[in-house]
C-alpha cells in the first residue's frame, strides 16, 4: 500500500511521576509527545536534538523496548504496537538496534562468538555448524578478525566493541536498524570508521537506518533526511540538503549555527539561545520552543503549531510558516 518501511503516527511516551508513600501519580514527563514521521526503504533517517529531547525514547519505542503511551508504529503497513509477544518476537528479526555505549552494550560474561550468534540461537535459525560459519562471516563483514570469537568483550577497544554490536544487530538480517548514537562514545578518529562501516553495510544489505545523534556533522555525513526534535516534539523534517542549506525552524537555525566550521576565515552569525531547556514534565504552553525563540510571536504562546509540509518534503512545525 505504501512505499514506506516505517510509519510513526502521533507516537507518545509519558512517564508518570510518582510521589509519596502511595506512589500517587502527580504528573507526567512527556518524553515524546505526538511525534510522526515516515521512513522510506533504504534511506537513512537522522534524528537530532539536544539531550533529553526524546530521540532515544522514540528509537526504543520503535523496537518496543518501551511501550508507547499512545500512537501507532506501522512497520511495512502493519501496526506493531498491537502485536502480542509471539508476533513481536517474529517481527524483531526485522528490527534491530545498535547501542550508544560500547562498554555497556555487550554482556561481559559472554565471548564475542556467543554474543554474535545469540540472535541466531534465540530464533532457532540454522544448526550449530552453520551458526559458526555465520559468526565467522559476520565478524569479517564488520572488519573484525574471526579468530577473536573466543575472546571476551573486555579484551577489545571501544571501536572494536561497537563493531561487535553491529555484527550482533546484523545477524538476523534486519530490514531496519535503529542506531542510537552509535558513535558518540567513540574517539573522533574511530567515529569516521564506524560511520563508513555503517554506510558500506547499508549498501551491502539494503538496510534502512534510523540514526540518532546529537552531533549534526555526523548526521550530515550519513543521513538522507533529517528530523529535528525539541522537547519531545518533532519541529522539522527535511531532506538533508534542504535542511542544512535552508533551515526553516528557528530552533534548527540555532542548532546549525552551532556547528563548527573548519575554516577560520569564514565569519558567521552565531545564534545563541536564551534561557534554559524547559522541563518536559511541565512544557510551555503553545509552541514548546517559544520561551527561547528569537522570533516569538503572540500566537506561539497560545497555540501549538502543527507539523505542515511547507515545501516539498520539507516539514516544519512553526507559526512563521502557517498555511494561510
Amino acid at each position, binding site marked *: 500500500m505504501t512505499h514506506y518501511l516505517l510509519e510513526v503516527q502521533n507516537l507518545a511516551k509519558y512517564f508518570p511521576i510518582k510521589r509519596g508513600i502511595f506512589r500517587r501519580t502527580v504528573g507526567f514527563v512527556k518524553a515524546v509527545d505526538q511525534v510522526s514521521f515516515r521512513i522510506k526503504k533504504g534511506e537513512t533517517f537522522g534524528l537530532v536534538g539536544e539531550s533529553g529531547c526524546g530521540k532515544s525514547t522514540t528509537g526504543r519505542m520503535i523496537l518496543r523496548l518501551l511501550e508507547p503511551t499512545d500512537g501507532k508504529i506501522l512497520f511495512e503497513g502493519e501496526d506493531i504496537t498491537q502485536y502480542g509477544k509471539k508476533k513481536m518476537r517474529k517481527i524483531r528479526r526485522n528490527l*534491530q538496534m545498535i547501542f550508544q555505549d560500547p562498554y*555497556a552494550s*555487550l554482556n*561481559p560474561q559472554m565471548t564475542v562468538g556467543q554474543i554474535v550468534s545469540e540472535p541466531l540461537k*534465540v530464533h532457532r535459525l540454522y544448526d550449530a555448524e552453520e551458526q559458526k560459519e555465520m559468526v565467522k562471516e559476520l565478524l569479517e563483514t564488520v572488519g573484525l578478525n574471526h*579468530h577473536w*570469537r573466543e*575472546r571476551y568483550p573486555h*579484551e577489545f577497544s571501544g571501536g572494536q566493541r561497537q563493531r561487535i554490536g553491529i555484527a550482533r544487530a546484523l545477524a538476523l538480517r534486519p530490514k531496519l536498524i535503529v542506531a542510537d548514537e552509535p558513535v558518540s562514545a567513540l574517539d573522533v578518529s574511530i567515529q569516521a570508521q564506524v560511520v563508513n562501516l555503517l554506510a558500506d553495510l547499508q549498501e551491502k544489505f539494503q538496510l534502512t537506518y534510523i540514526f540518532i545523534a546529537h552531533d549534526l556533522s555526523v548526521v550530515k555525513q550519513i543521513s538522507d533526511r533529517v528530523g529535528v526534535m525539541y522537547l519531545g516534539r518533532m519541529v522539522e523534517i527535511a531532506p538533508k540538503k534542504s535542511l542544512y542549506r535552508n533551515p526553516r525552524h528557528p530552533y534548527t537555525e540555532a542548532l546549525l549555527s552551532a556547528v563548527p566550521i573548519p575554516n577560520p576565515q569564514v565569519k558567521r552569525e552565531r545564534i545563541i539561545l536564551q534561557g534554559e531547556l524547559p522541563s518536559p514534565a511541565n512544557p510551555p504552553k503553545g509552541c514548546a520552543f517559544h520561551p527561547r525563540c528569537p522570533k516569538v510571536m503572540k500566537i506561539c504562546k497560545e497555540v501549538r503549531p502543527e507539523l505542515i509540509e511547507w515545501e516539498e518534503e520539507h516539514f516544519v512545525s512553526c507559526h512563521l510558516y502557517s498555511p494561510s
Partner: protein
Amino acid sequence: MQPAIETKKAVQTVRKGQSPFQLALKRFMKNKMALVGLGFLILIIFVSVGAPLFTDHDPSYSDLYNVDAEPSSTHLLGTNDSGQDVFARLLYGGRISLLIGFITMLLTVAIGGFLGALAGYYGGWLDMIVMRVTDILLTLPTTLTVLFLTAIFQTDEWVLIIALAVTTWPNTARIIRGEFLSLREQEYILSAKAIGCSGTRIIFRHMLPNTLAPLVVNATLLVAVMITVESALSFLGFGVPPTVPTWGNMLKEAQDISVLTDQPWLWIPPGLLVTLTVLSINFIGDGLRDAFDTKATRR
C-alpha cells in the same frame, strides 16, 4: 592447498580469551590470606569427611571404664563424662557443623537468589510482595525465630537447616534484587530484549552470571555465619540434639566450672576449630570480594 597458506593459518589460531570470572580467580590466587584460609578449610573438610581414616573410635560409643580420661595415646584428647572419645567427636562433629553451614548456605542462596531475581527483573506487584515479606522477616530476630521453630518441631539438623534458611534468605534476596535492578537498565539487557530473548533466558543467561560476584561473596560469608549460629544454638541447647556430636554441643558439655578449669582439652579444641574455620571462611570471602571488585570484571 599450498603450503604457504597453511603456515599462515597456523599462526592465526583461535585463542580462548579469559572470562571475567577466570580473571577474578586468578587475582584470588594471588591473595595469600585467602589462600591460607582456603587451605585450612579444605583441611578441615578433609579430616571431618574422612574422619574414620584418622580415628578408630566411634564418637557415640561410651567407654564407661574410661570416663573423664586425660589425653593419652589411646584417647588423643581424652574422653568426656560419658566416656566418649573427644578427638573422634571433634572430627565427626565437624561433619555436622560444616554440613549445616553449607546446606543452609545453598538453601538460602537458592531461595533468596530466585526470589530476588524475580522481584528485581519483573518488578511491579511481584517485587512488592517479595520485598514486603523480606521486610517482615527481617524484623524478626534470627536467633529467636530459630529457637521458636526448633521448639515447635523436634530438633534435628534438618529442622535447624530449614529454620536457618527461612530466616536468612531475605538478606540474599535483597542483594540479588538490588543487583538485578541496576543490571536491568544496562544496554546489554536492552539488546537481549531487542534480539527477542525470553524473560527466563535474560535472567539466567544475561543477568545471573553478572550477579555471580556478589552472590558468591555473600554465600561464602553465609557459611561462616551459619557455623557460628549453629554453635551458639547448640550451646544454648536449642540446636542439634545433645547426643549428636557437633562443635556447639561439645562446647555445651563444657558448661561447668570444673571442666573449664581442669579439663581444657574438652573445650579448647572445638572452640578453636569454630573460630579458625569461621576466620578462614571470612578470609576467603574477603579475598573473593577483592578479586571480583574491579572495573575489569564489571564490564
